């Protein structure tokens, strides 16, 4: 018989569940001896402590109600999901405010941390929750115009997707993360296929196959980690890694590497991300917009786990070079791809890839200041990519589907005098085209990182972060890659913008419905707000990175003060 693995309930030094009530009682009676905010939060059990679990419970409950409602009660369904997503946004904002003060830990079933599953809302989680809610709200409002009716059970799937995404951001347990990943992916399979049609089904087939394999990688990684470390709680893992006598680091690192492959497939790092542009281009517009957050879930987990587990301790710096290399390669591939893209949706897909690559590469350099800028850039680029998907759908609506098969430079070989109509159209400039044009401009500025919007601020923050102190060769490479990817994004987006907005077409100007207008202007306003309140946003990102750089604080928050102290 093989040796039994280290079990959490037998290893010494872990608080058992029975000791907890006494601790809580001591907290209630005396002055708080610990810096941990967790125990104070559980000691009081105010209603607001349950906020942490609401981003998961609320959407799944409403999604269940959606299944009971008939498809014809469209107004009711739309209203319900709108209210739900608005509530989610409010909850996410409240969580962000509270997380800025201290990380909150929610113990499901009140089981203590290494045994039960915990949800942790710290700054990074709360930031991602807000991002997901904003994007979700705008995508949902956009779908009210047309896409919500394109197939059955759109709202249920949409809410389930949000539940999976929120859960993945909140959970503090690796296997729970797998479950939320699967919920998110299962809903995304439905959303990719939403609207049906040959392109979607073909793209969906590949998407599902790739992600099923990624899930298997996830499982292998998780089980290897459990087999070597005997725990799946992230904080407990970090604590055990920090202990001097952790066993079998090699096998554990193999497990982490396999797990990392699953996340890198999800955030479409080169060479694992060829599925992304095809799938996102094929998906319906609101689905594609919300899918833009999915690749960021992969990024989130990579950031979370590398800083928590490999910031210091036994396997310090594990995989950093690989993440850097994958990030640089993804940026290069995404830039080449966006240069070659002939449809706006494909270009937006490659923009998502570039944004993922940027995040990975900056994480790989290990520079904390640059990572703060990158987090700020992540929010802006995700919002802009979502807006670009929505814009692309409006602009390409009603055009001949075979347009992409035309010669690449068809517009350049045209007789210039054929364009005389352009002046007429310019004079009777419809309001819809004006909004679309300015929206497109905003997206381009954001994604390419051109002043004065937040894309530029983010890139500048990354540059200054990389350039503080002696600049290493790696930092030079990354600065070059960031600059090149900016130009590489700018050129094709300008070309596509001219093609879609300036070149006079025989088609009537696109009709913009009210909800589409609202969704689009919501996303653009969020992009603008990010630039206008750039100072507080960057300060928040800075505080997030400072928090992430102190994994012992996270461990202390989840496991309690004594355990965190042992971990340092």
């Amino acid at each position, binding site marked *: *018989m*093989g*040796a*039994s*693995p280290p*079990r959490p309930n037998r290893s010494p030094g872990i608080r058992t569940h029975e000791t907890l009530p006494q601790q809580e009682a001591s907290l209630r009676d005396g002055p708080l001896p610990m810096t941990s905010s967790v125990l104070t939060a559980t000691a009081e059990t105010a209603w607001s402590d349950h906020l942490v679990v609401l981003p998961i419970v609320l959407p799944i409950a409403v999604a269940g109600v959606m299944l009971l409602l008939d498809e014809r009660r469209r107004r009711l369904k739309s209203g319900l999901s709108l209210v739900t997503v608005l509530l989610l946004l409010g909850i996410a904002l409240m969580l962000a405010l509270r997380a800025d003060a201290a990380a909150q830990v929610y113990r499901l079933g009140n089981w203590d941390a290494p045994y039960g599953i915990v949800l942790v809302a710290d700054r990074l989680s709360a930031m991602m929750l807000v991002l997901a809610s904003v994007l979700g709200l705008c995508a949902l409002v956009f779908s009210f115009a047309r896409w919500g009716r394109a197939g059955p059970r759109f709202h249920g799937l949409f809410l389930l997707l949000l539940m999976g995404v929120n859960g993945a951001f909140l959970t503090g347990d690796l*296997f729970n993360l*797998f*479950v939320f990943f*699967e919920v998110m*992916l*299962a809903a995304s*399979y439905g959303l990719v*296929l939403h609207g*049906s*049609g*040959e392109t979607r*089904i*073909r793209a*969906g*087939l*590949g998407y*599902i*196959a790739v992600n*099923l*394999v990624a*899930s*298997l990688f996830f*499982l*292998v990684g*998780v*089980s*290897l980690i*459990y*087999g070597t470390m005997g725990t*799946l709680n992230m904080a407990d893992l970090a604590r055990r890694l920090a202990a001097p006598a952790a066993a079998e680091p090699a096998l554990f690192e193999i497990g982490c590497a396999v797990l990392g492959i699953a996340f890198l497939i999800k955030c479409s790092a080169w060479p694992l991300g060829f599925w992304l542009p095809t799938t996102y281009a094929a998906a319906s517009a609101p689905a594609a917009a919300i899918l833009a957050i999915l690749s960021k879930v992969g990024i989130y987990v990579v950031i979370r786990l590398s800083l928590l587990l490999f910031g210091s301790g036994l396997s310090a710096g594990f995989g950093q070079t690989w993440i850097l290399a994958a990030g640089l390669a993804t940026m290069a591939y995404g830039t080449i791809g966006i240069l070659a893209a002939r449809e706006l949706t494909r270009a937006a897909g490659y923009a998502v890839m570039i944004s993922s690559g940027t995040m990975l590469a900056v994480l790989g350099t290990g520079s904390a200041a640059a990572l703060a800028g990158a987090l700020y850039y992540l929010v802006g680029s995700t919002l802009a990519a979502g807006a670009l998907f929505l814009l692309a759908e409006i602009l390409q609506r009603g055009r001949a589907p*075979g347009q992409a*098969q035309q010669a690449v430079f068809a517009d350049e070989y045209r007789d210039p005098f054929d364009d005389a109509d352009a002046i007429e159209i310019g004079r009777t400039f419809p309001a819809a085209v004006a909004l679309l044009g300015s929206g497109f401009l905003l997206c381009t500025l954001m994604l390419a990182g051109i002043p004065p919007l937040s894309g530029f601020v983010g890139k500048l923050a990354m540059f200054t972060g990389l350039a503080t102190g002696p600049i290493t060769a790696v930092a030079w490479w990354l600065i070059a890659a960031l600059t090149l990817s900016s130009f590489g994004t700018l050129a094709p987006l300008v070309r596509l913008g001219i093609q879609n907005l300036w070149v006079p077409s025989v088609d009537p100007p696109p009709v913009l419905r009210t909800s589409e207008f609202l969704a689009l202007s919501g996303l653009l306003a969020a992009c603008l707000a990010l630039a206008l309140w750039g100072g507080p946003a960057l300060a928040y990102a800075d505080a997030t990175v400072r928090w992430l750089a102190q994994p012992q604080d996270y461990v202390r928050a989840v496991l309690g003060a004594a355990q965190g102290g042992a971990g340092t």
Partner: protein
Amino acid sequence: MELVLSLGIGVFAASGIWLMLRPRTFQVALGISLLSYAVNLFIFAMGRLTVGAPPVLGAGAEVVSVDDPVPQALVLTALVIGFALTALFLVVLLAARGITGSDHVDGREPAQAEPQPGNPHP
């Protein structure tokens, strides 16, 4: 027992990977199923192999050999999720077969893979 289990995992995984790289969608579906069997066995093995050991101890039981219950719980969850997603994959596979008229993963037969100028979608 270790040898049998590891051979089983290896054979499942090898056949699964081979089938997954085949051009027909049904082969891919079978390959993913086989691969997920291999992974499920692997998770199970990560709890170490024991014979006749209880996963849960009663009151006053003497601890001689205990089976780790956590991987078993993990396997159950993974099985359920894997089953559901394989079923979903089969539905999409059938839809793809119905719409494209081909069970090739690319949605068209390799002999006609080059689109003709007059017929972009053979």
